[in-house]
């Protein structure tokens, strides 16, 4: 890696970690303020929505509210997409959307996955992008944050039956955290060159006429525009990832400059990282938050190093073909297929690692064209369960599930009842934690297996051999863990993939979310036990190491055989 590359990585990590404390503290204040003391405008929203802000919910009611809300979001989005042609704000006359694509997209956006089986600028009207997709970008992230806050209350409270109010938590996430940050980011992105307009596409007279693949002359360039910045800001901050354009943040309009790229990479991990600090504040022991954040950061930095190294090394095939892959003052060198010149290798590697560590899934380079081990980093980060930072809310609640598993294993080793943050971890919590950890793994593996048996899926693969299989494994790993990035050569807009991936996203999201709410409820009901000299500390380096080991072991044991058939064998073939 180049010196400048290392400098950019160091700068990125420094700014990210410097923002954790102020933002984390702010988020904690938002959620710790008693509902009765809310300012007037917030109370107006509660009045309009018919919400009694002081009513506390049991875990069952909380789960029900979350499900009802997401189901309503699903129906609305499905209807908007299905009737796009009859709705306003369609200046470029986008056509109808098939029912299975509408199902897939609705499932994708309510689960914070934002997998896209379609190309945005050639499929979606401005209305669908704005009123359909942007709304769920906010609400799926806000739902995830609400459920995390409920889980944190499970630790912070004791001997009570309630874990907060879903509507209050969701509304506060959207109003106080996501909306202001998005507004600021959107304007910064427009400043850097991102379009924000309702006019139809622009038409340019080409400087040098070209030919299409049938050989007929073309003298004009149709330049797709739209309300891009407002959607892209929340796409990054809400760990959504669904692009305005097909090429996502590789598109120069969706990521015009190195600065826009930096701001977006920062936004990828910003809220998930800050929530660790919020966690520490709310449970009354900030070291607990730092410990979880440390575990995430260590895995992240290590895998980022792997990805950047292999992308910079490029492939023997490029060398053999006669391309100059060396880095110099005038060229980033490396594996530039699917990458943009303005970002070069290191920013493509940071972005790819951050977007799959977080359950974001937007891309600034095409992961399908990464080197085998560079691509493996993205694939494996998703398969770890989207807990290395992970989604807004969902990342940390997933990581806490693994922390519960870690203290349980430690408890078994020393023969004591496991405890985490002054709460005894017993059979019920362990059952729920196992479900939350294993359901996405099962969905990813079974989904891949079914797709490989299904005859029609072979035609969807864009690359032959192990890489084509890798595209399918990537798709189901992405869907089951609600990431949304793709080895995009796979043509997923078929009835089989739209339905199976849609189901994988729904099962992966709610199969993890509902057990977590159950854990929140049972923890809140427990007594808070005092810390004694016999309590295993969960804020020190030993616990951080244990947590990392549990995460990596479950991830490696579950997926090693599947990975061996894909990127690993591909790497061995490459170097032979």
């Amino acid at each position, binding site marked *: 890696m180049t010196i400048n590359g290392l*400098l*950019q990585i160091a700068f990125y990590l420094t700014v990210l970690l410097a923002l954790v404390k102020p933002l984390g503290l702010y988020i904690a204040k938002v959620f710790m303020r008693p509902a009765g003391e809310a300012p007037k405008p917030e109370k107006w*929203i509660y009045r309009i929505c018919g*919400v009694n802000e002081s009513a506390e919910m049991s875990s069952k009611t909380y789960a*029900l509210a979350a499900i009802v*809300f997401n*189901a*309503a979001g699903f129906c609305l989005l499905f209807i908007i997409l299905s009737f796009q042609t009859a709705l306003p704000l369609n200046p470029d006359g986008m056509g109808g959307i098939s029912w299975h694509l509408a199902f897939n997209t609705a499932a994708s956006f309510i689960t914070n996955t934002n997998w896209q089986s379609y190309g945005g600028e050639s499929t979606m009207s401005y209305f669908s992008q*704005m009123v359909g997709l*942007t*709304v769920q970008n906010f609400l799926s992230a806000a739902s995830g944050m609400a459920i995390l806050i409920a889980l944190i209350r499970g630790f912070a409270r004791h001997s009570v039956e309630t874990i907060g109010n879903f509507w209050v938590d*969701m509304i506060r996430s*959207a109003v106080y955290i996501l*909306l202001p940050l998005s507004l600021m980011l959107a304007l910064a992105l427009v400043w850097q*060159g991102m*379009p*924000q*307009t*309702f006019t139809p596409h622009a038409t*340019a007279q*080409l*400087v*040098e006429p*070209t030919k299409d693949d049938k050989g007929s002359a*073309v003298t004009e*360039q*149709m*330049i797709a525009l739209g*309300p891009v910045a407002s*959607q892209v800001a929340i796409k990054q901050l809400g760990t959504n990832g669904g692009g305005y*354009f097909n090429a996502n943040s*590789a*598109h*120069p309009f969706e990521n015009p400059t190195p600065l826009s790229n930096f701001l977006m990479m920062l936004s990828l991990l910003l809220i998930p990282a800050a929530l660790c600090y919020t966690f520490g504040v709310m449970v009354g022991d900030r070291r607990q938050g730092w410990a979880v954040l440390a575990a995430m950061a260590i895995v992240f930095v290590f895998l980022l190093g792997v990805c950047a190294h292999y992308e910079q090394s490029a*492939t023997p*095939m*490029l060398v*053999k*073909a006669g*391309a*100059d892959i060396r880095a110099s003052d*005038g*060229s*980033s*060198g490396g594996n530039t*297929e*699917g990458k943009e*010149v303005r970002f*070069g290798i290191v*920013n493509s590697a940071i972005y790819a690692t951050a977007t799959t560590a977080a359950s974001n899934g937007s891309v*600034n380079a*095409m992961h399908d*064209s*990464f080197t085998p081990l560079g691509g493996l980093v993205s694939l494996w980060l998703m398969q770890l369960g989207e807990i290395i930072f992970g989604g807004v809310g969902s990342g940390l609640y997933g990581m806490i599930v693994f922390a519960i598993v870690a203290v349980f294993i430690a408890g078994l080793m020393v023969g004591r009842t496991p405890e985490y943050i002054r709460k005894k971890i017993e059979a019920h919590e362990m059952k729920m934690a196992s479900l939350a950890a294993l359901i996405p793994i099962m969905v990813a593996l079974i989904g891949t297996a079914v797709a490989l048996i299904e005859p029609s899926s072979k035609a969807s693969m*864009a*690359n*032959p051999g*192990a890489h084509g299989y890798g595209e399918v494994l990537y798709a189901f790993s992405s869907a089951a863990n609600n990431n949304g990035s793709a080895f995009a*050569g796979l043509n997923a807009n078929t009835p089989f993939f739209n339905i199976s991936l849609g189901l994988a996203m729904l099962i992966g999201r709610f199969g993890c979310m509902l057990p977590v709410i159950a854990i929140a409820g049972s923890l809140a009901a427990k007594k808070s036990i005092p810390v004694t000299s016999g309590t295993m500390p969960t804020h020190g380096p030993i616990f951080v190491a244990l947590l990392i080991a549990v995460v990596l072991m479950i991830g490696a044991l579950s997926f090693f055989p599947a990975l061996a058939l894909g990127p690993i064998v*591909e790497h061995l073939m490459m170097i032979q």
Partner: protein
Amino acid sequence: MITQIRQGVITLAVFTIITGGIYPLVVTIMAQALFPAQANGSLIVINGTTAGSELIGQSFSGTGHFWSRPSATGPLPYNAAASSGSNLGPLNPDFATKVRERVDAIATTGPANIAVPVDLVTASGSGLDPHISPAAAAYQVPRVARELSLTESAIMKLVANNTERRQFGFLGEPRVNVLKLNLDIDNLNSGHKLEQR
């Protein structure tokens, strides 16, 4: 249950209006007021005609122009209404063939003792990359100068004018905007022809 459904539907409606209506409208109004050029696509307008966007690349492969990177968009390269990368895997035989063909085509036109910079023979992620690396531009300077019967130093000056450095000295990579460079070259060339007459 009924209460939850009522609250859910109303909350969804309220937030559809706030996040799907008010939020994008506020961003649009502020963006159009503060940064109108960027908000409308950073278009390059010459004598009333739109020549392109400075952020969106165009296909250049003719004589007297700097060539842009290969583009994988369909049905024509640099289709700004349907962005796309090639998504070719690193070991795909088609990928190796394509890169070799591009290297062979370019190598005959470039300096004999320098290898072809990798970005010039690989497709970008968007298929709309407006840039090439400074190395890829330097590689093409002798060809362009020869084709236009201009000195290499005159061409190099234009390349330098259209080279963007790393932002703040360290962010991103240095790069050359191909569309803007070629517009400058056309300008210089038409002036040069007038002089000759």
